[in-house]
């Protein structure tokens, strides 16, 4: 239906434009020319994203079903490439350096895993055309797909990108919940995942441990790991009802707030535009995600339905975790705010997801 296409496009563009303004405001005072141009790059990425949105909205999503294994394989390959380059360069890397930009595969890996899981759980029994997932045992319902998720997850966490890795896990559990897989299996999975957490603690990198500890009490280390959260809370809290005004945010523009144009862009925005606009922004996200759920709900095709759910959940989780992280309600895990944060990979991947969403709705109408 054209309706959802227009709605999603308008909401996404509105959020993205707010993002460009915020990125400009948080970087325009920095001396280096590199920083000065950052908002222009974001506009460029936004344009590329919109083009991708149009392309994907016209690209029949059913073809993704066929390509899902290929897409999954490609994602793994990219991750391995990042992983091996990281080894060669003796340092962690999240990006692949392409001609003039950095490509961050983990953003696309999230989408690839969703496509893969949507296909995996929407296979139908050949005899009675019912979903196979309801009949899955613990191995095929939980263990096998978990392995398929765990491999890219491990590679992403190893980058190190804890946020994206956890996102994969959360999306997996959520999708699992939405399929017909038995609830008790999911409970078993959760227990199995949560039980070894104390042991996994030792495998975390020191800075990741710091961040988690600091989440519990940011004042442990106010000038170290807790600094960002404290400054971001100050930024949001000091905004007041109407904000300090565009380009007048002292927290973000005087660089008290690190990562003010990427992970902590919400704080930048909130400081300058205030409570009212922040509520508005959150509402915009809510409307966007609601569109996704509406599409998922009215889609009959189980692959399309799961895919739509997966995309919406991914968006919702990223928005929720990022904003909570800005407010100090969640640990700082390094996750961009979709459409608002600076980052070409993120914005293009998000627009591609939205394009797929629109196409699912459009294709449904064809049936």
């Amino acid at each position, binding site marked *: 239906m054209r309706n959802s296409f227009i709605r999603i496009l308008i909401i996404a563009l509105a959020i993205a434009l707010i993002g460009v303004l915020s990125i400009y405001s948080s970087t325009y005072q920095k001396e280096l020319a590199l920083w000065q141009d950052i908002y222009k790059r974001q506009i460029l990425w936004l344009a590329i994203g919109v083009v991708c949105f149009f392309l994907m909205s016209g690209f029949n999503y059913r073809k993704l079903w066929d390509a899902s294994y290929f897409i999954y394989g490609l994602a793994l390959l990219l991750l391995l490439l990042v992983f091996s380059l990281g080894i060669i360069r003796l340092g962690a890397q999240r990006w692949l350096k392409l001609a003039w930009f950095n490509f961050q595969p983990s953003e696309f890996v999230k989408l690839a895993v969703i496509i893969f899981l949507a296909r995996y759980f929407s296979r139908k029994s050949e005899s009675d055309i019912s979903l196979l997932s309801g009949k899955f045992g613990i191995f095929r319902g939980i263990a096998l797909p978990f392995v398929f998720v765990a491999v890219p997850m491990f590679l992403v966490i190893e980058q190190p990108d804890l946020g994206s890795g956890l996102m994969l896990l959360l999306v997996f559990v959520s999708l699992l919940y939405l399929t017909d897989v038995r609830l008790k299996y999911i409970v078993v999975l959760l227990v199995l995942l949560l039980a070894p957490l104390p042991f996994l603690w030792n495998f975390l990198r020191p800075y990741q441990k710091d961040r988690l500890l600091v989440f519990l009490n940011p004042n442990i280390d106010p000038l170290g790991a807790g600094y960002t959260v404290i400054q971001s809370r100050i930024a949001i*809290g*000091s905004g007041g009802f109407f904000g300090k005004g565009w380009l007048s945010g*002292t927290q973000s523009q005087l660089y*008290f707030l690190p990562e003010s144009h990427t992970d902590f862009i919400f704080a930048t925005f909130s400081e300058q535009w205030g409570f009212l606009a922040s509520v508005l922004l959150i509402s915009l996200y*809510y409307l966007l995600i609601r569109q996704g759920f509406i599409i998922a709900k009215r889609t009959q095709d189980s692959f399309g339905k799961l895919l739509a759910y997966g995309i919406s959940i991914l968006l919702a989780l990223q928005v929720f975790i990022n904003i*909570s992280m800005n407010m100090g309600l969640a640990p700082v895990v390094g996750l961009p705010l979709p459409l608002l944060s600076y980052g070409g990979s993120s914005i293009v991947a998000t627009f591609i997801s939205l394009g797929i969403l629109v196409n699912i709705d459009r294709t449904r109408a064809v049936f």
Partner: protein
Amino acid sequence: MDRKKLFVYFLGLMFVVLLIGLADLNVLQGAKFRRLSKNNCIRLISQSGTRGNILDRNGKIIAGNRISYDVMILPQEPSQLDRAIAAVSRILGAESKELKAAFKKNFVSSSLPTTVANNIEPRKAIILEEYKVEEPSIIIQPKPLRYYPHGSSACHVIGYVNEIDRWRLTKLEDYGYKTKDIVGFGGVEEKYDYYLRQEEGGLSVEVNHRGKFTRVLGFQPPVNGRDVQLTLDIRVQKIAEEALSGRKGAVILMDPQSGEILALANYPDYNPSVFVNKRPALISALFNNPDSPLVNRAIQSSYPPASVFKVVLASAGLELKKINLSTNFVCPGWAMVGARKFSCWDTHGAQDIIRAIAHSCDVFFYKTGLLLGGQNIHDYAIKLGLGRPSGFDLPYETGGFIPSPLWRKINKFQKWYDGDTANLSIGQGECLTTPLQLTAMMAVFANQGYLPAPYIIKAVGGLDLEKKKKRLSPVAFKKGTIEAVRRGLREVVSDARGTGNALSALPVAVAGKTGTAQVSRGLSHAWFVGFFPYDKPKYVICVFLENGGPGHAASVIARQIIEKMNNQGLI
């Protein structure tokens, strides 16, 4: 399907959580965060004005200011503090432990630079300033500091500066004084602190997360203190100090026509710069010194005036017509007062008033005193400015004390005996005066009958105070009385047997009175109070030596002073 509905609700809940979180930060805790945000980015850089100078009558600086350099640290993070302290300790050669202790002691707020070292050498200040490129948290703050170009000269007049003490703070809080303020102690520095003191100014600047300056938010220009000009002539002052040097006592030189103090010297003295340079050992030595070098003997302590007091007796006797110019008393070396024998210091034979002053004959004044009675002596002493503070410009002036029968009756319930009158007649007993009072008294005979109110402040902040000063008050003595006393005072010097004969060889005609005050312990106090030149007096001089021996010792010092002043053409 239920699962899906539940899930949608769950996601909706997530957004509610976000909105609640936002409201909590923005609305409930908004004020707190707005304050934090302000503190984050605003730094205050103080700029101090300079304390007013203290000048002598010719505009020469007695207490001025020089630039000193303080090292301050404004760390953005703890590791920066350690690095900065390490660098400062390396360059200054100071223990980093001490610097850290100083940092802890002086720390006020993270938005204010904290002083770790005071008054460093200019050369090291330059080195540290260069080092700032590497360590931007180090700040070299130039600060004006009290400077005394003449060392300890006139130290008792100017006083010293130090950090405000609790007592002064409670007194001065309402006038805008704060803890750690530098205020004056003693002398002009204390009395005129309100005018001398500078007003702190400063910049409030916005900084970024590295503490780097971004823009100026506000500027309050510092205000310099007002200069205070004294009537002191630093040349005369130095002559007086040199002559006095090594002898406990005080010297005052005053213009008898106006009451302007031209020199006010005390010994032992101190160098006020020890308080500026904060030398604890030297400072505590000053306070513990039994000779109390911090005391301004000229005004803050009183002594028996001894024979100098005979001037009061002479004028009272002549005024009240108890004696006249032809009155003669024979001095056999002693006199009987009641049943007690009061001795004279010598045997003088027949004495009239002029000779009695010249020879300082005790017997003549015992008899005059007995004719006058204690109350009359007291009244004339008060008339001549004794026994009450003169209202001098410097703080902590004492009033001295003149006993009287009435006072004795009221306060001690005791009778006044003739022996008391005899004692008072020669300025002994309970009678106490300050050198300044005797100086003012002597001026009456120098300027033909006017008691001056001595003063030492000529101008404050360029505003001349001379017109606002009290006029000389006439004592209303008869011309003959003054003339007789004057002649007597001249004879003290010119008569071959006069007690002040040591001054006769001077090219300037000096008149005056010596005094030898017996004290219960130690050598007697020595006085010489006089004026010169005799015909047209320009100066009243008072030399007082605490436990300095006979009055002759004081007149020798007076001679040295007058001689030097004459040589330098100051008379």
